[in-house]
């Protein structure tokens, strides 16, 4: 019976496709989000990481590496399952890639409990920066709160006295507003929690208009941010009430999608495409050559995560057997970050500068993010005191 044979053949093929252990290059496991509306975040982290490998011809720090990428679909359970397979079957010791805090929360404890390393190219929730910190867990991006603290400081620096704040009604949104308030010295004219599945902000915008604040702070990552900004501009508010945001609400993709509507927006970021340092120039040139799409800070973080691993691989000659030596090498952060100055704090989260950016018309007439000043110097996070390593 043919059908039966075909079925059997397919089952055997399926089993054979579970990749068996191979020898040579050091394997790096990337668990990231590639499907759904947030797919572009994971895609950019992956492509940024790959870029660093490609520039070295498939090596990092002189050591041949192999990158295994899998889509977690923004499901914590899926992320955990991938980690387990990477750990058990592939024998992977180096991990990176997770975009979202909830996937990180389910997956990273497993990774570090198995004596593998994790370098976060994005999410860094507060509990893992404080009480739950771990010697094998590193963050090259930022601690979540820093993003919004920088926006708060920026609003203060710009001399605004009365702010209206909006963020989605979930943990990251509440943290965003808390972070903003921590450094904003003026008065809060109003506070609105939107919904994660919201597509229309007209009701909120009407309230903003009625409250007549000096400035609006909002945190809406990805597609939500595009929607919010577009509707803000369409309501004619962009000309009346200036806005400060942190980088998740205005990345390269959001900017390309929102277009001229974003002109005049105040953004704070730890990195921008126009940074004038050698590492960043190399990165930007390679990115523009390799990919025909706007660069985002996610890509820069993926790239930096690769550089961080490269530094440790170089120092240890690719020997992962001595975990302590590898960890010590990683902790030194001996690499040229695309953001310039970079160091790990006591909880192995970044201590870095934050910058004020503004959306302006570029030479080609398209809106671009321009670096205009500094907001914080050597800024760490509030949780490192709770971290006992």
């Amino acid at each position: 019976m043919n059908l039966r044979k075909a079925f059997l053949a397919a089952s055997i093929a399926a089993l054979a496709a579970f990749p068996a252990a191979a020898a040579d290059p050091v394997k790096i496991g990337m668990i990231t989000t590639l499907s759904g509306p947030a797919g572009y975040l994971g895609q950019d982290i992956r492509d940024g990481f790959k870029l660093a490998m490609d520039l070295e011809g498939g090596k990092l720090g002189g050591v041949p590496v192999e990158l295994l990428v899998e889509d977690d679909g923004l499901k914590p359970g899926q992320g955990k399952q991938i980690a387990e397979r990477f750990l058990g079957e592939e024998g992977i010791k180096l991990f990176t890639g997770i975009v979202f805090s909830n996937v990180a929360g389910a997956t990273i404890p497993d990774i570090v409990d198995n004596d593998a390393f994790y370098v976060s190219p994005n999410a860094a929730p507060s509990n893992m920066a404080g009480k739950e910190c771990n010697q094998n867990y590193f963050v090259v991006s930022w601690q979540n709160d820093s993003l919004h603290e920088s926006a708060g400081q920026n609003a203060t620096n710009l001399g605004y006295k009365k702010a209206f704040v909006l963020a989605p009604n979930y943990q990251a949104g509440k943290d965003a507003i808390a972070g903003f308030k921590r450094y904003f010295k003026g008065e809060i004219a109003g506070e609105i929690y939107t919904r994660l599945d919201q597509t229309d902000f007209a009701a909120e915008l009407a309230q903003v208009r009625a409250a007549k604040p000096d400035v609006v702070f909002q945190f809406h990552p990805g597609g939500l941010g595009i929607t919010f900004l577009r509707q803000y501009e369409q309501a004619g508010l962009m000309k009346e009430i200036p806005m400060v945001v942190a980088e998740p609400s205005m990345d390269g993709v959001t900017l390309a999608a929102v277009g001229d509507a974003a002109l005049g927006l105040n953004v704070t970021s730890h990195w921008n495409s126009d940074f004038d340092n050698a590492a960043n120039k190399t990165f930007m040139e390679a990115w523009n050559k390799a990919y025909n799409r706007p660069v985002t800070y996610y890509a820069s973080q993926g790239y930096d995560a690769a550089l961080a691993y490269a530094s440790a691989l170089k120092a240890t000659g690719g020997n992962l057997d001595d975990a302590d030596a590898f960890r010590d090498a990683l902790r030194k952060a001996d690499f040229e970050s695309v953001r310039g100055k970079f160091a790990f704090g006591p909880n192995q989260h970044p201590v870095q500068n934050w910058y004020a950016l503004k959306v302006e018309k570029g030479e080609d007439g398209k809106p671009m993010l321009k670096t205009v000043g500094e907001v914080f110097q050597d800024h760490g996070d509030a949780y490192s005191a709770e971290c006992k390593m």
Partner: protein
Amino acid sequence: METSLKRPVLLASVVIALIALPLVADATGYTALTSLATRVLIYGIAAASLNFVLGYGGMVSFGHAAFFGIGGYVVGILYQHYTLGEPLLGFIPGTNQMLITLPAAIVISGLMAALIGALSLRTGGVQFIMITLAFAQMLFFLFVSLKTYGGDDGLIIRRANELPGLNMRDKQTVYYVCLAVAVLFFFMLWRLVNSRFGNVIVGLRQSERRIAAIGLPAYRYKLMAFVISGMGCGLAGALMANFLRFASPDMLHWTKSGELMVMVILGGVGTLFGPLIGAAVFIVLETLLASWTENWQLGLGLILLFVVLYTQGGVQALGARLFGRRA
């Protein structure tokens, strides 16, 4: 419809295979198979619970993720209060003992099922689908807003619940615990389906009027079935929280209800082991395809479509045709 354990030999060999699975997995180097199988067992319990109302009772609930999530959160919340050392609501002490958390999860999801079922069962058909969805979504948003318990980020359970004498940090132990629970669960489900109560439930699907004519209170029977089904899902959720060491609002989202439903339909509606097979097929496919290609959703979608269009009654029926036997 298969309501009996017709082939004890086959069944025994499946159980033996499942017992041997972690050893085989270790010997062949596919160590992740064990946790894949754990997930299959847990989702199998949840899907079979859903199938009890959906397949046997004809009540299409689109909100069973609610009970799954509640089960998970019971474990998570008790664990959080255990580690913080603060009693819940001031008088309920937290715990990390599985012998307490599992029954607690079952009881509490059963109570929620009683509440939701009592209201939902006043409707029927499409309206029943939507009203169960509505209640599940309300609970979803409730947990998203609960900042104390992690809100949208979820609740990390640093250590799995303890069972006296067992090392629950070992993946194989967790697997065997889930397997034991699953065997017990399916045995009880089998007894239930073949009991007088089970016959009434099947009768209700076929004709509610006939059951009413016999003088049996249809509503009360349906509610009872709904509660039992919710308890099963709560049990699965509690196991899941222990396995993932994590509980999050994701567990209550409507897409999770949808996935459970897909597993039931995929495996075979109204069969005892269909949902378990469906869960296995769905999870293995998802995992396999995702490790091959990042366009795994396309493959999964095409396979689901194929199963619906070309098999009558899901994978179990397909298997029966392929191997020329009645499954």
